[in-house]
C-alpha cells in the first residue's frame, strides 16, 4: 500500500513508545469517537432506567390496567409529560416499564445467540475436515431460511410464547451468522504458528482453544453482538406488530407502539414517543457498534 509504509512506521513507533495493550488502544480510540460516546451514554441512561424500574415501579404497577375514564388518552401535560394511553396509564411510566422488557429481551437473546454461535463455530473451526463441512452445511441451511419466516413458523407451532420462550426463540434463530464468523477465525488461527508451538509443548486442545484462539474471537463477536442487540429490538417490535410478540399485560416498546397505532393520528403521543424510544435506542446501539468496529479494526492492523 502506498502511504501505509509511513503509517506502519508510526504504528510500530506508537506501539513501541506507548506500550499500551491493544485493548487500551482500542478503548482510547473509542473514547475519541464522539458519536460512539454519545451512543454509549444514551444506552447507559436507558439501561440504568431499566434496572432501576423494579425498585420505583413494582411489577404490579407495570401490568395494571386502571382504566379510569377521566384519565384516558390525555395529551402531554404537566402531570403526564408524555400523555396517557387508552387504559389511562401514564405513557412515560409505560415506556419505563417497557424499557426493562425490551432491553432484557434484546440483551438476553443476544447473549444466547453469541454463546451458542461461538461454541458451535469454535467446534466446527477447530475440528475441520468433514465435521466442519457438515456443521457449516447445516448453518448454511439455517441461514437460508429468512429469520422472520422461521420465527413465524415456530410461533405458530408453539402455541404459547412467554417472554422466556421469546428470548430463547430469538436467541436460537440468531446464532447462525456468529457461528460462521467464529468458525472462519478459528479455522485460520488453527494453522497459526504459535498453535503448533503450543501443541508441541504438550498443551491440550481445550487449552489451545481457550488461551490462544478464543481471545482473537472476542472482538468481532462483540461487534456482531452489539449489532445484534439493535437488530433484535427491531425484530421484536415487528413481531409484536404481527401479533406474536410480548403479550399483554406485559409491554415492550413494540407492543406499546402497536397499541398506539389503533387511535393514530388523533392520539399521536403514544405512537410517537414509543417509536422514538425504539429508534433512539437502536440508533445509539448502532453508533456504539460502529465505533467498536472502527476501534477494533485499527487495533488489528498488523505491522507487516
Amino acid at each position, binding site marked *: 500500500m*502506498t*502511504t501505509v*509504509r*509511513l*503509517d506502519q*512506521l*508510526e504504528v510500530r*513507533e*506508537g506501539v513501541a513508545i506507548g506500550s499500551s495493550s491493544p485493548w487500551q488502544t482500542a478503548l482510547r480510540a473509542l473514547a475519541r469517537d464522539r458519536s460512539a460516546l454519545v451512543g454509549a451514554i444514551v444506552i447507559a441512561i436507558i439501561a440504568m432506567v431499566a434496572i432501576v424500574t423494579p425498585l420505583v415501579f413494582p411489577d404490579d404497577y407495570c401490568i395494571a390496567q386502571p382504566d379510569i375514564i377521566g384519565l384516558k388518552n390525555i395529551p402531554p401535560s404537566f402531570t403526564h409529560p408524555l400523555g396517557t394511553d387508552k387504559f389511562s396509564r401514564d405513557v412515560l411510566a409505560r415506556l419505563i416499564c417497557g424499557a426493562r422488557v425490551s432491553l432484557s429481551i434484546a440483551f438476553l437473546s443476544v447473549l444466547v445467540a453469541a454463546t451458542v454461535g461461538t461454541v458451535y463455530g469454535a467446534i466446527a473451526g477447530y475440528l475441520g475436515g468433514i465435521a466442519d463441512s457438515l456443521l457449516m452445511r447445516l448453518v448454511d441451511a439455517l441461514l437460508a431460511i429468512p429469520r422472520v419466516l422461521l420465527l413465524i413458523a415456530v410461533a405458530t407451532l408453539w402455541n404459547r410464547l412467554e417472554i422466556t420462550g421469546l428470548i430463547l426463540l430469538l436467541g436460537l434463530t440468531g446464532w447462525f451468522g456468529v457461528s460462521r464468523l467464529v468458525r472462519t477465525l478459528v479455522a485460520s488461527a488453527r494453522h497459526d504458528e504459535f498453535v503448533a508451538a503450543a501443541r508441541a509443548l504438550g498443551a491440550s486442545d481445550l487449552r489451545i482453544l481457550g488461551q490462544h484462539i478464543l481471545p482473537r474471537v472476542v472482538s468481532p463477536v462483540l461487534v456482531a453482538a452489539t449489532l445484534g442487540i439493535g437488530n433484535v429490538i427491531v425484530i421484536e417490535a415487528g413481531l409484536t406488530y404481527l401479533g406474536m410478540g410480548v403479550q399483554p399485560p406485559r409491554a415492550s416498546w413494540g407492543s406499546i407502539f402497536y397499541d398506539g397505532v389503533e387511535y393514530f393520528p388523533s392520539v399521536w403521543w403514544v405512537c410517537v414517543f414509543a417509536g422514538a424510544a425504539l429508534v433512539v435506542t437502536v440508533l445509539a446501539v448502532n453508533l456504539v457498534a460502529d465505533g467498536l468496529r472502527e476501534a477494533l479494526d485499527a487495533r488489528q492492523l498488523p505491522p507487516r
Partner: protein
Amino acid sequence: MTQPPLLTVSDLRSYFYTGAGVARAVDGVSFTIAAGETLGIVGESGCGKSVTALSILRLIQPPGRIEPGSRIVFEGQDLLRLDDAGIRRVRGNRIAMIFQEPMTALNPVFTVGDQIAEVARVHASASRRAAWDRAVEMLTLVGIPAPAQRAREYPHQLSGGMRQRVLIAMALVMNPALVIADEPTTALDVTIQAQILELLGDLQQRLGTSIAMITHDLGVIAEVASRVVVMYGGEVVEEARVEALFEAPHHPYTEGLLHAMPRVGRRQERLTVIPGTVPPPTAWPSGCRFRDRCPYAWERCTREHPPLYQIGPGHTSRCHLAEEPERRVRRSDAVTAAESAGQPPRAQSVA
C-alpha cells in the same frame, strides 16, 4: 555536458502531516538526470527514495504534500506548477513509472492487454483496435511469448516475472523520455531479477530512455547505473559516478552500505552491520542525521548540519569529513566492543 539535463529536481520537500507529527520524508533533495542516462537512487527503507519518485509525478496523496519552494523541471516545464490536466499529460506519456510489487500493481479485474492499451487510449486517443495492437506490440518488446494470447489474460494468471514485464511494457507504450523504476526487482527471484535488469538495460540502449533506478540493492546499481545518488534521512548524502562511488566512497553511510554487502572471496566471521536504526521522519536528529550511527562522528556533527561538500568532479558528500578528513579514524576498541554488544556508538572526540 552540452545539453540541459532532462530532469532537474531542486530542493524537493515532501512532508506528511500525520497524527504523530509532521513526517519530513523528503527534506531538500536535489539531483539531475541527463537524457539517455541511468541514475541510481540508493538507500534503506525509510530514507525517502520512493517518496521522491512519487513526488516527481505528483502522486503524493493527502495527508502528504509537496511543499512550496520545491521545483521539478522536466523538458523545460516545472511539473509542480502544471494544472491537473497538464500533469496527467506527462504521466505515463513523457515520464512513466514502474512499481515495486507486480502482484498488486496491476488491476485484477481487467485483462493485461486492456491495461496496457489504456495508456495508448488515454494519451494517443487511439482506437480500441489500434491500442490493443500496440499493447501486443509492447508485450513482444518485453519478451513475453505468445503475446496476443497473453494479452487476453488476467494478472492472476501470470507469474511474477511476467507481471513485471507487463508493468515495463505499460511504461514504455508512449516511448517516454524518462522511466522511474521503483525497486522493480525486489519482489522477484534472483534469476528473474537478472533477466529484468538485462531487459531494462537493453531497452534503454534501443530506445534511448533515461532511467531513474530506485533500489536498496547496491548490486543492482553496479549493474545498470552510470551515476548514483545515495539517500539517507530524507536527504541526498552522496552523489557520484558509479565507479567513483564503489572505489572511493566518501560518506560514512555509503561506506557502511558497501561493507555490509557480503562479497564472494572475502572471508568474514560476521556480516558488518551499520548499528542502530533509521530515525523516524517525524524527528530527524539535529546536525547530521547519520551521527548516531556513524563511526567517526564528533561534536561538530551534533551541532552543525552538514551541507553537500564537493569532493571531486561530479562527486559530492554531505559530511564534515570533507573539511576535516583527519577525523576519519576508526573508534577505539572499547567502542567497538560496545557496538558488538548492540549499543549504538556515541560520538567521541578523537584524542
